[in-house]
């Protein structure tokens, strides 16, 4: 069985990352945006793993663990913030949460 070439993984990673960006920029619901961020993070994870495998080095794998841990922490905090935001504003539409400006 031949090994899947690294470029396949990278293309998949790029597509996932691109989808994440598109969702991040165009979606209005904060939860969806949040999911888009997660998508991008995992796209990057995929690229890391692919490179680690191709180069036979552990560094990339170690990084993936870090990213997963940080993403878990981030989603915990982020969801908490979103809940508080919803309690205060009764909305999840990001265009209506625009108080932080000059």
């Amino acid at each position, binding site marked *: 069985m031949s090994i899947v070439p690294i470029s396949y993984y990278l293309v998949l990673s790029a597509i996932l990352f691109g989808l994440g960006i598109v969702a991040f920029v165009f979606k209005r619901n904060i939860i969806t945006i949040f999911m888009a961020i997660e998508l991008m993070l995992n796209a990057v994870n995929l690229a890391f793993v692919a490179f680690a495998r191709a180069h036979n080095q552990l560094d990339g794998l170690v990084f993936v663990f870090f990213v997963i841990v940080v993403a878990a922490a981030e989603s915990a905090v982020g969801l908490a913030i979103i809940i508080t935001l919803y309690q205060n504003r009764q909305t999840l539409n990001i265009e209506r949460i*625009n108080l932080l400006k*000059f």
Partner: protein
Amino acid sequence: MFILDHLWIIIALPLLGAAINGLLGKNFSKPIVNSVGIGSIALAFLSFAELVREFAQLPAEQIPWVKTYFTWITAGQFRVDFSLQVDQLTIIMLGVVTFVSLLVHIYSTGYMAHEEGYYRFFSYLNLFVFFMLTLVLAANVVLMFVGWEGVGLCSYLLVGFWFLKQSAISAGKKAFITTRIGDFGFTIGILLLFWTFKSVDFGAIFKQLVSAQSDAAISTSVLTTICLLLFVGAVGKSAQLPLYVWLPDAMEGPTPVSALIHAATMVTAGVYMVARMNPLFSRAPIALFVVALIGALTAFYAATIGLVQTDIKKVLAYSTVSQLGYMFLGLGVGAYASGVFHLMTHAFFKGLLFLSAGSVIHAMGGDQEMPHMGGLRSKIPITFWCMFIATFAITGIPGFAGFFSKDEILEAARSGPNANVWLWLLGLIGAGFTSFYMFRLIFLTFFGEPRYDEHKVHVHESPYNMTVPLILLAILSTVGGWAAAPHLVGGTDYFEKFLHPVFSMYAPAGVEGTPEAVEAPGIMLLHALTGWPVLIALAGLLIAWWFYIKSPQTPKKLAESLRGPYTLVLHKYYVDELYNAVIVQPLLWISTNVLWHVVDEGVIDGTVNGVARVSRDTGSELREIQSGNARSYATWVVIGAVGVTVLMLGLWGMVR
């Protein structure tokens, strides 16, 4: 040899006094301020006395005695030491400065007793003495310049002592700025001096002059330029034509200040400087003639203004300008010793005149106008007699100090090595005017009927701390000239003998410092007593007596018949107005319309405001980016990330 080795003590004492009174004096009681102020000067005077004793034992080849304490400035070839020197000229000046300032300090305890800022006054006076002593003791031109500027500063501070009075502030500024014009010349002179001689030390410069005697290493034109530039400084400081205008205005200051700074010491700094630089001036005949010419013109010119002034201090101020002119005349005709001699006697009698005038003003309760006085002779007898003696001294009545010194100057102008009959004539007529205005002052003030309201003004003699200095100065005004007495019987007077080394050591070859008197003793005496100066002084006295005692209506009639000239002189030849129109107003116009409205408002403010406006406008444009919309932020992040990626790929591509 204690003081000779520690010359710095003499100048450090007044500085210490100034520091103590100036920094801590606010909380001192008057006796403490007095004892610090007078004590420091008295100690300086005692140090001077000790210095004289040690100096007398110094072998002649060790004079001038130079003591270097530390190097002040070094920059390439330029090297200035903090070094002090003592020679005969320094001794004379030190004596005058320490003694007169001691008396003025004592006098001030009475005169300034009821003034605000008593400690401030004494602090300034001490500071002045410090700078004046630095000027006199300095062994190089730069250190001398430090003292020179320092006394100018103290003059400014003391003229404007009553700083709530607008006229006093203006007078202080006028004194400072006018002398600054002269100092500009002086500074360039110092630079040229260094450029020519590669040194600023008096001794080094003079030695080079002697060794470069015959060859053309140092051209006469350079020397003349240096001397003229230095003399510009002297003109400013010693209030000669055309920079004399500040001195009469400086009378806004307290009277002891006028006596010390604007009569006895600071204004004579120019005379001292020219005398100190005599080896230079002796080799620059044109410069020397300019000195004599300016001196004679000033002596005459200021005397004419003095004729019609009514303010008692203004008369004395113009008289000071005039007498300084005589000193320069003496220096200019090559009689350096006579010029310095007149400096000394003038310090005594003019200091006395000012202090007496202060006593009169004190008695009149602040009024300085002579037409408001009259008949004060019996009310304030001590002041009267002291002022009377001083008047005799300044007019040159035989036997009093001014007789010897002024006669010597006029004699040198008539028959000395650089004699000029026109300068002599100017000086002589000036002497007649001097006599007239001085006796006019005496007659208007002390004789005739009282013209003040006796119910309002309570005329009283001044306290002892004011009259004792007067009496001491009166004694010196009488006997101070007797050092020159052998001159009358055909000898060389002691004063000239004493100063002879200073003026002959570096003198150009073929010029003897002191011309020995040649006339037979008896004829000399007769000649001096019946000479023109004495006759014209007596004439001035008689005319003043006729005008102000015998027939008091004559001056008024004369003034009416000579309305034009009278108004001209009364308004001081409109020189202040002329300077105002020619110099002050154009300067003001340029400052306002060019420097203020164009350069300051346009260029400087424009630049600053322009920078501010650009950043503000940029900011308000960039502000739009921060919309509060998280999605737009996200877009920016994406754009940035893409930008960074492209950049990195591009760079990577380039590196490869």
